[in-house]
């Protein structure tokens, strides 16, 4: 397996040779931030294209085909359009908060994005409490949505924002329980160690029944966390025009849009890290020649492949089911997902104590 830390260490050494360590640290910070933001935007563009094509396929259409071959340049055209559009300011709105809200949403999503392990040594933030930090960083995105809804001075936005608040606070609980199930199983919260622990088998195979249940609950709750259909009632088009981002235009709307897509990427990335082994290739203990062949595929491709598979599953769910009502959303969470998740956590603990995991 190729270790990316050799490259990063070499760059670090090079920078330290030509300048004082303090300046090198600063340059590295800027470089890492630049790379992270660039990757963030590139993935967003890829995902918007993917969403359009997958949605079209589920509806028996072809999707964008005109701009560039197979419509490949469509997203770039859209981004360009969004960049040159005017940013409108609203009468009687709270200007400061109105302009702050999109940045809060993007900040939360970029912070979470930095925790994803793209490959061996290709990981920006690797704390000893990585999973917990992911929960924390993703939890304040809802603040931006609430602020956007409130400061727009529009009742549709406000209703959308409050719905979003209720939904995201509830579903965070399920996500927390699912992550906890995996933490109980692996005994660590550090992301690099979590991936390392899946060297001889992914957690979804190692943890069998409780891991599969946790995976399903995580997918449902993660879908709700990204405000996508069937949980898109914060921005329900038919009732609330566009929900919390009704009044936003130009790139401010673009931030919400990109953050929504990247939250989907992050949810899928965490799912593939925790359940499907992250960048770890498919290893079956005993079949050494098979494992060696699998090792030849780079870890980045494994990670992206798994992530985009989970994204595809989430899009499949999105384009299949109709929107839930707010009471259905809340009762699904509190009457079904939380009790089942807690029971599942108990089963997992029992399995770990009895040594029933592989």
């Amino acid at each position: 397996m190729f270790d990316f830390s050799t490259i990063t260490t070499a760059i670090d050494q090079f920078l330290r040779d030509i300048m004082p360590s303090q300046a090198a640290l600063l340059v590295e910070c800027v470089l890492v931030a630049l790379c992270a933001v660039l990757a963030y935007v590139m993935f967003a563009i890829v995902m918007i294209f993917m969403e359009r094509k997958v949605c079209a396929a589920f509806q028996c259409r072809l999707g964008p085909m005109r701009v560039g071959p197979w419509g490949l340049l469509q997203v770039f055209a859209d981004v360009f359009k969004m960049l040159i559009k005017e940013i409108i300011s609203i009468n009687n709105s709270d200007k400061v908060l109105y302009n702050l809200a999109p940045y809060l949403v993007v900040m939360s999503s970029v912070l979470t994005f930095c925790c994803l392990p793209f490959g061996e040594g290709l990981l920006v933030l690797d704390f000893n409490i990585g999973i917990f930090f992911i929960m924390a960083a993703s939890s304040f995105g809802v603040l931006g949505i609430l602020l956007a809804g409130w400061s727009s001075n529009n009742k549709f936005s406000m209703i959308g924002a409050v719905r979003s608040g209720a939904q995201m606070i509830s579903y965070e609980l399920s996500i927390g329980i699912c992550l906890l199930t995996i933490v109980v199983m692996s005994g660590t919260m550090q992301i690099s160690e979590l991936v390392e622990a899946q060297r001889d088998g992914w957690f979804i195979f190692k943890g069998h029944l409780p891991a599969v249940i946790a995976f399903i609950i995580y997918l449902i709750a993660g879908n709700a966390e990204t405000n996508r259909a069937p949980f898109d009632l914060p921005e329900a088009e038919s009732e609330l025009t566009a929900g919390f981002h009704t009044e936003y235009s130009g790139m401010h709307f673009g931030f919400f849009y990109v953050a929504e897509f990247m939250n989907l990427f992050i949810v899928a990335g965490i799912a593939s890290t925790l359940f499907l082994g992250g960048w770890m290739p498919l290893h079956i203990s005993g079949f050494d020649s098979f494992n060696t062949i699998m090792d030849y595929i780079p870890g980045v491709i494994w990670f992206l492949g798994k992530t985009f598979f989970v994204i595809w599953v989430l899009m499949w769910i999105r384009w299949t089911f109709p929107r839930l009502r707010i009471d259905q959303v809340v009762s699904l969470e509190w009457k079904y997902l939380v009790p089942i998740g807690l029971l599942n956590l108990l089963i997992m603990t029992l399995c770990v104590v009895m040594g029933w995991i592989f």
Partner: protein
Amino acid sequence: MDFKKTYIGRVIYSLVSLTTGLKTTLIEFFTPKVTEQYPENRKTQHISERHRAMLYMSLDENGNNKCIACGLCANTCPNGTITIKTKMVTDEETGKSKKVLEEYTYDLGCCMFCQLCVNVCPKDAIAFNNKYENAVFDRSKLVIKLNK
């Protein structure tokens, strides 16, 4: 107690019904797509025979039509799309004078393709064809003389 109405039964049955929905869309995902890529597919595209795109008069090789200039089509047309100019022609053999079509004008821009004119024609002189690419740059070009 009905098993379907218990807590566990509800979870299981809702999962089953959700899976049914997912299965349906998955089949749709892999079916061939129905989108027609219009300007590129001119050669292969299929337009139904009965698609009403434009009125025409069937002419024989001499340019004669079956129209008897009765004016029924012009009278039926709700939009006044058709105007018929006639002239009186005296038949040389019998010496009787007869109303003959001089000019059959059809305004495509006014037509709503209701097919009343075609239905009312006693001689089946007019019909709709499916040649639909009728866009022009000038409105006056939509007024078409159908007979020769």
